């Protein structure tokens, strides 16, 4: 306890001294997110300063081993660091698929050389990564992917197409699932890393129903990849993929709890309803809407309690529990419903695309409403989630 308290004091002092003032203010736009990478531009030099200072201590990846540039913190220490960061309202020094997704996979599955090569650059934000999983013909059936990776003796040759590769047009490297054995399905997939600057790689941004998007279609034409870039065993990539997908699913589930673009700018569902519909005797003027809002709030509360219960069960050593299998499904459906309800509340003010006549908050809700439709598709569709529950949890047969 004393050691932890000491750690808290030191951390607080260090943060006070090293977190630049502008990094303690809320971001005014998503464009201010620091993603790092070879071509990173910093409108605000303090953002770069903040990144470098945090990276130097390894605190962009606080729990990774110091040997690979990480902070080497214990779970408890990291909790304190996060509390102290929140206390001063510090912006994230670095946002990175390398930290969120790839790093943990490398730590578990990569060889020593690969860890030494890639992890420190991720920590320092030098290399920005993207993830090449889905393909046009392999969505829910991800293991049906067809991007071909041939062994050409001294190198691999990659041909194929990926889709939904977030920020592929801005990333430096990609971690990618490829087919190395066409005669098998799950057991013919490998996990490969390569430089997006390699000849034959092309990324095209995808225009979405909600507008511009970070998603790309990415094409590989005779892309040569050094053989040392294979992570784990040949044809055993599915094991790594499953681990990463689980992680992605958990991130998406959290949406049921609200967050960015969830109408927070409007003060929540009930305040929005009072503002856009009016009130009578302190009640939302439309009784049926009031009832719908209550259903939404009740289900949201029940979902939050269930995530909390699951966490408490895990802490009590009772494992993640069956309840966690429904998080992705329920969280995303709940999020979609909330946006449908927000639009119902906002009437014609929730139907603007851009320009005059609508506030920034209103446009954000409308765009987020459209974007939310993807929640129940990406990271495993709701249908796939329900299949998983009925088969693995309920034991219903094929």
């Amino acid at each position, binding site marked *: 306890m004393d050691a932890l308290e000491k750690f808290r004091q030191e951390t607080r002092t260090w943060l006070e001294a090293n977190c630049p003032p502008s990094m303690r203010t809320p971001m005014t736009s998503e464009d201010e997110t620091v993603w790092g990478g070879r071509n990173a531009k910093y409108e605000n030099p303090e953002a770069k300063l903040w990144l470098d200072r945090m990276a130097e201590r390894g605190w962009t990846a606080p729990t990774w081993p110091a040997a690979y540039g990480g902070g080497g913190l214990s779970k408890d220490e990291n909790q304190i660091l996060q509390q102290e960061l929140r206390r001063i309202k510090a912006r994230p020094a670095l946002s990175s698929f390398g930290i969120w997704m790839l790093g943990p996979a490398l730590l578990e599955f990569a060889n020593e050389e690969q860890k030494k090569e890639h992890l420190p650059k991720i920590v320092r934000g030098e290399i920005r990564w993207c993830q090449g999983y889905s393909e046009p013909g392999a969505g829910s*059936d991800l293991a049906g992917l067809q991007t071909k990776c041939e062994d050409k003796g001294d190198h691999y040759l990659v041909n194929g197409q990926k889709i939904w590769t977030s920020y592929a047009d801005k990333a430096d490297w990609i971690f990618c699932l490829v087919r190395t054995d066409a005669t098998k399905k799950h057991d013919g997939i490998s996990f490969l890393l390569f430089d997006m600057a390699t000849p034959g790689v092309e990324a095209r941004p995808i225009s979405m129903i909600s507008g511009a998007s970070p998603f790309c279609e990415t094409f590989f034409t005779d892309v040569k990849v050094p053989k040392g870039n294979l992570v784990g065993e040949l044809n055993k990539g599915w094991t790594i993929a499953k681990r990463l997908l689980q992680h992605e699913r958990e991130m998406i589930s959290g949406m049921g709890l609200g967050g960015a673009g969830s109408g927070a700018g409007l003060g929540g569902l009930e305040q929005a309803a009072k503002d856009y519909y009016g009130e009578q005797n302190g009640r939302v003027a439309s009784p049926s809407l009031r009832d719908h809002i209550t259903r939404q709030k009740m289900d949201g509360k029940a979902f939050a309690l269930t995530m909390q219960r699951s966490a408490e069960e895990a802490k009590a050593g009772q494992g993640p529990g069956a309840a966690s299998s429904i998080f992705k499904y329920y969280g995303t459906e709940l999020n979609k419903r909330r946006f449908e309800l927000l639009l119902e509340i906002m009437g014609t003010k929730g139907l*603007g695309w851009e320009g005059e006549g609508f506030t920034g908050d209103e446009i954000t809700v409308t765009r987020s409403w459209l974007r939310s*439709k993807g929640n129940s598709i990406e990271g495993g569709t709701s249908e796939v989630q329900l299949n998983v529950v009925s088969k693995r949890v309920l034991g219903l047969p094929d």
Partner: protein
Amino acid sequence: MALVLTEEQQLLRDTATQFFQERVPVANLRKLRDTKDADGFDRAVWKEMADLGFAGIMISEKYGGTDFGPVGLGLVLEQSGRTLAASPLVSTVLLCGSAVQLAGNATQRQEILPAIAAGERIMALALEEGPHHNPTRIATRATADGQAFRISGKKTFVLDGHVAGQLIVAARTGGNDNDRTGITLFLVDPKAEGVKITRTLMVDNRNAADIAFDNVAVPSTAVLGSIDGGIDVLEQVLDIARIGLSAEMLGLVQEVFDTTLAYLKERKQFGKVIGSFQALQHRMAVLFAEIELSRSVVLDALSAIEARRNDVPLVASLAKARLSDIATLMTNEGLQMHGGMGMTDQFDVGLFMKRARVAAASFGDGNFHRDRYASLEGY
């Protein structure tokens, strides 16, 4: 009651189907959007629609119309819904044309109706003042000024407001903000001094405008119908628009259903077409049922106008509530079943979802019309 089409009506439907499929496919809407078209609809196409008689479909032959009647108009709107065709049908034909026919004096009819039928006059109804449809919540005031009136107030969500050659403005000549009496309709020149029109860009790429009136002078000849008695005209006109929009949404819903069904038969995952999965099959079968019910409701509402039945308000609310809800449901289900590709702008389903939502919010959504239905039925 007539829930089956006559031969003449079937012919009209076939003409409309062919016209929209060939001349106004969804690609037209994309072009208007991507070129940031100043009008927001294709004037050449509108002229062709007028030539086919669509613009004058509810106008009697005496005034240059084709007088096909409401069922005919519904068929045209349904087909326009299948291709998301942008046109002034709702603003000019359903709303303003109906208002002039119902309330206009001989001079006004003679001046306006032939121009509408010929496709030469675009009109817009300036009614709403808040984010939710409410025909009696009118704070815009028209103050008598000798023989003339002075109008001041702010209107929003005026369909085709920025391209209209003539406006019909609902303003208060008496009573308080939520009173049924005291509302008067005025014909107003959008170029008159004190009128400020701001086009808003809606999610469905259709036209709507915010319009501010600052002490705008209008002569007494501009009054449409009786002074203080505008609500009766408005309600009839709005019911026509609600039923017309329901017909448009019926086409939209049917199109998304058909497209989704085709996709389910074609898209493969796990080695089989996804349409072979029973969970999706049952959802599609339920949607099929809902659409069949929706078709009956729309046909009945159209024939209620045609037969001047006294239950028009009731069936208008039934149709608008049901189609608003089903359009939301079908576009959501359609998008989900299209998977990731449905999220791309390359596929059309997102465009249908956007239009569905705007049509649902226009002139009363499900909440509004269920409440109205219950009140009309006395409970």
